[in-house]
């Protein structure tokens, strides 16, 4: 497949800092080995789900730790609620929820005791009987509340960890691979919960290795080798990967290349790729306008169409495309324009 579109962030508006929940500027954290994250620019509005996708070791957890204040940047800056998290006092920390990548539960304690422990760290208000009951119901663990954690399944433990991160009703929640190692049904439930939280005005920063989960997010950042290689809405990311919308055209008979070249010019396609003797994939600026134009142009020339439709590439392909291009071409996001998002209200966004 040939796609000429450069890997870059979608055009964004630069919002004032106080309208953002999380803002990072040239944020770097470099370890002695040279690994870490490099010059990340992030601007995440409140009330959104920000997905952070990247392969293992790409720097997702380091980024989360920088945003929670557990780590301090070696250069650049990061602000949450308009303030560096490393300077947070107890009251500000209470506004953050954090679910680490690995289980941090106490195996000797029961499900309820674990939840009560984490709730009590934020004050007696959150460890009341009613609150415990509500939270356990929220994560569907009410029936297992008396079980010791050591006797629960991995999925139950992830749900309990989620409850522990949310029990104090934080404004922003950092979830480090919350769906890792759990079955698709439970993953779906998790994302349903996340969207509920977003609807309640919470901001979620979710890292994941499951690229398909990008579809659930309002914005997605793609991280590779410690660098942010793309940042956009899910649809925007797809367009970014392929240089525009993708349209698959199936002809009833074989067509020659001259026709395809003319057709490309006529519908203003960026490129095309012959997928099979009768099937061709075009990259167009807008599928919604290109498809009628394409049908009309072919009718005028009496070329019979079997099928023409927009193709939505899976996010796995999007991710692979982006990462490969980054690694092959060492193309990054142009400084100064990368990592900033349109601050469209998430409720107005269509997610797949």
């Amino acid at each position: 497949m040939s796609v000429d579109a450069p890997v870059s962030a979608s055009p964004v508006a630069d919002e004032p800092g106080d309208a953002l929940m999380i803002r990072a500027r040239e944020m770097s954290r470099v370890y002695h080995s040279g690994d870490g994250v490099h010059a990340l620019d992030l601007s995440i509005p409140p009330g959104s789900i920000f997905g952070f996708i990247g392969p293992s070791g790409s720097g997702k957890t380091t980024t989360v730790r920088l945003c929670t204040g557990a780590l301090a940047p070696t250069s650049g800056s990061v602000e949450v609620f308009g303030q560096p998290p490393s300077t947070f006092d107890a009251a500000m920390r209470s506004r953050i929820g954090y679910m680490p990548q690995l289980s941090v539960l106490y195996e000797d304690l029961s499900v309820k005791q674990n939840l009560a422990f984490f709730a009590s760290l934020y004050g007696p208000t959150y460890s009341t009987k009613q609150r415990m009951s509500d939270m356990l119901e929220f994560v569907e663990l009410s029936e297992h509340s008396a079980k010791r954690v050591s006797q629960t399944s991995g999925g139950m433990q992830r749900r309990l960890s989620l409850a522990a991160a949310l029990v104090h009703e934080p404004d922003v929640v950092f979830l480090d691979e919350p769906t890792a190692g759990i079955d698709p049904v439970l993953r779906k439930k998790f994302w349903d919960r996340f969207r509920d939280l977003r609807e309640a005005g919470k901001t979620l920063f979710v890292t994941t290795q499951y690229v398909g989960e990008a579809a659930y997010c309002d914005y997605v950042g793609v991280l590779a080798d410690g660098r942010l290689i793309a940042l956009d809405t899910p649809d925007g990311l797809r367009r970014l990967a392929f240089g525009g919308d993708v349209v698959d055209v199936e002809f009833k008979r074989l067509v020659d290349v001259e026709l395809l070249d003319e057709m490309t010019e006529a519908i203003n396609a960026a490129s095309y790729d012959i997928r099979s003797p009768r099937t061709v994939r075009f990259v167009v600026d807008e599928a919604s306008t290109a498809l009628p134009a394409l049908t009309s142009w072919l009718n005028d020339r009496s070329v019979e169409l079997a099928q023409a439709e927009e193709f939505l590439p899976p996010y796995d392909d999007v991710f692979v495309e982006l990462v490969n291009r980054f690694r092959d071409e060492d193309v990054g996001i142009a400084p100064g324009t990368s990592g900033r998002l349109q601050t469209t209200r998430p409720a107005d966004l269509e997610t797949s």
Partner: protein
Amino acid sequence: MKYSFSIWLSGTLAFFKKELIAIVRQPKLVLTLVAGPFAILALFGAGYKQSVDPLTAVFVIVDSGPFIDELESRTDELGDDFKFVGTVDTAGAALTEIRSGRADVAIVVPPNPVTKVRSGERAVFTILHDRLDPFEQATISLLARSTVNEINDRILQDLVTTGQGESADLAELVGETQSSLSAMRAAMEEGNTAEATQRRNDVTSSLAAIRAETSLSEAVATSVGDGVGGGEDVTTGTFGDQLNRLSDGLDSVDLSESDSLDDDIATVAALEEDAATLDETLTEFRRIPPDVIVRPLDADTEVVSAADLQVVDFYAPGVIALLIQHLGIVFGGLSLVRERARGTTEVFQVAPVRPMQILLGKYAAYLVAAAIVAGSLSLLMTRVFGVPIIGSIWLFVAIMTLLNMASLGIGFVLSSVVDTDMQAVNAALIMLLLSIFFSGFFLSLDRLTTAVRVVSWSLPITHAIDSLRDVMFRGAGVDIRTWVALGGGSVVLFALAWTLLARKLASR
């Protein structure tokens, strides 16, 4: 949300409850902590012997002679420390006996011991053994010296007994001396110079006979005078002095000079009194038992502390203290390391949790757990073994609590510097070994050099064991040094642990 004291307290109590539940959820752990040391002490108490078995000994006798025959015939008198099991004629054979386990030691008898003594040298008995334990080696040396002293005493005792038998003849000669002096004085008063001279010759002959026969008895009598009297009697002197005084006094009497007759009569009268004293000395010498003469001084010890202690009693406070210290160090040491390994430290970094809350909550939980263990163990020891607590029970509790706090401090400090729970456990074991060797638990601190004693007294447990023994067995109070060491140490260690934990939790 405004951060308030209630939130602070809620967080602190969360750690307290969490740790306590985790411990209670491990009944086997609690049971082991109580039953383990109790079983060890019970076994120790049941198996400990107040006296050691006698060492089996073979004699290595190269030559023969009257002394050797005598020695072999009296092996049952070696004392309780050695048990004679046979005789061999070479050192090599003796070593074979030792290595085969048939004998613990070999006593090499020197060749011709009597000849050696007569030549003015000591006859040295050499003890051979193959024990590795330095304490056993010292014990064998001590037992050997003690046994040789015992043999020496028996030799002397036999000689004294013989001397006392011979002193009957001496008494008769002294009696004759007294009679001759009385007759001499009577002849002088009557002016019978010839008779006086005859009697004087009789006295001289008697004194010479006494000198001839009492060369040994005189030496013994001299030592009796020194030992029993605490020194020479200035009026009577020793047996030899008295004999000399008699001889000198007799020599001063000049029977040919009539001008000094009155003085000479007075001199002879004084000599009569000296002879009577000599007789009394001999009588006293025969009256004193030979073993008293040989060993005039003895020692007896009496424990003046309030408690009559068994060996188990003595070690009980040390065992409890060691357990409490080990518990504190392991609890504290593992606690933070495991939080780090589990990843919860990262959550605490993000949550509104302060190092003080973590430490206070954990300290309180571990204090309660250790108090339950120590209380149960103390109860068992006092009720089952009858270990006494004569002093204040509250002082006992206070020392235990402070030791626990100090130990937790050590544990938390260790926990902040080690990386894995394996390292924490190893560090706790090293602390345990350090404490066993240097706390005075089984080895008196007097046996350590001053420099090493600094190490001993830098350990909280050293102060605790010392004070616990004072409180439990002497009914004494606790000195200021202990309060400062345990209390101050606890505070300093807590502050250090807090500082280290704060650094760990700070943004890095």
